[in-house]
């Protein structure tokens, strides 16, 4: 008769708990990914750049040194009397 009454409020609470859990979990994963993403990009970028520049330099080894050629995508610098 009255024994069923208390069980009613517990049903939404039971549904809420996994939902909050999922939210917290998602936020946690998002935070980890956000923190990791720049480092992964640095790593991937450095790897890809290294391969590219090694190839470029190897090619240039077969060419005599000429003015104004850049071996890498990094900004060239000039050493001079200052």
């Amino acid at each position: 008769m009255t024994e069923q009454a208390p069980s009613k409020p517990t049903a939404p609470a039971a549904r809420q708990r996994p939902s909050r859990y999922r939210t917290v979990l998602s936020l946690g994963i998002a935070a980890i990914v956000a923190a990791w993403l720049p480092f992964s990009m640095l790593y991937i970028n450095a790897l890809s750049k290294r391969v590219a520049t090694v190839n470029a330099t190897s090619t240039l080894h077969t060419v005599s040194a000429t003015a104004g050629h850049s071996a890498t995508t990094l900004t060239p610098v000039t050493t001079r009397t200052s």
Partner: protein
Amino acid sequence: MPATEHEHSFELFGTRLRVLVSSAMPLTLATQLITRRVKHRLQAIHRELTRFEPSSELNHLNAHAGEPVRVSETLLEGVQGAPQAARLSDGLVDPTVLSELERAGYATSRVGISPPPLADSLRWAPPRSPAVPDPAAEWKRIHVDADEHVVRLPRGVRLDLGGSAKGMAVDLAAQMIAANPAFAIDAGGDIRIGGAYATPRTVEIAHPLRDQPAHNVTVTAAAVATSGLRTRVWRAGDGFAHHLIDPARGVPAWTGVIQATALAPTALEAETLAKMALLSGPLAGRAALERHGGALILDSGKLILLGELDTRPGYPTVDRLTA
């Protein structure tokens, strides 16, 4: 995602100083902050170690030669670097030739003053001969107490930290940004290249008599420095003078070399080796550059590649240099 290279440049040490920092992200606050910190640190070094500002700490030390003087950490490092350079060059790169330098006509800053054509000065110059170390070697009598931050210069001796201070500053700036994927500090003649990832960068060696580069070299992690006559030459009386003093004779050295470029693990070392090679002349200068590599340009404009730059054909690559 391509790497972005951020450049920050400003006038310092009588040249346009460039700080290049590469990162995978667009311009970040962190990059801006680090380049600002580098700028402020280098400006502080310049303020304390320049001989052209009457209020500089170096001038205070020079004015009290013969007495123990308490100095800042920056001046202490600068003073320690000068005898280090003298020792490395067997006394040729002598920091105590300031009076001779002033007598030759370099008493005030020459920033903004156009030099006469180098070719004119070479036509006038006396017979060429290698510079010689001063037998008195006053630099050996500089007393440094690093624990107490106290320096005592020999009586009558004044220091010019010009080149070594710039080398030291470039090395310090390199330490501050070493964790970035790739970086370059370019202080005119003195350059330091490196970064967390070994990424080659092209370094052009300017030719002092021509408009095009004398040579290119690809550097991964090293310092490159150039010493020469082109920008620090001036008319003096009926002839010409420049800023590289023969320590034994006390006058500008005309050795047959007009520019020397040296590679080394640090900018201070590269700067010292370049100056040493120029002062040594075409023959002994080769030995100075043999270990890490370098280039000499003679009065005739002829380029001589040495060490690592000579052994690799065409477009040489220099990887990480270690002491």
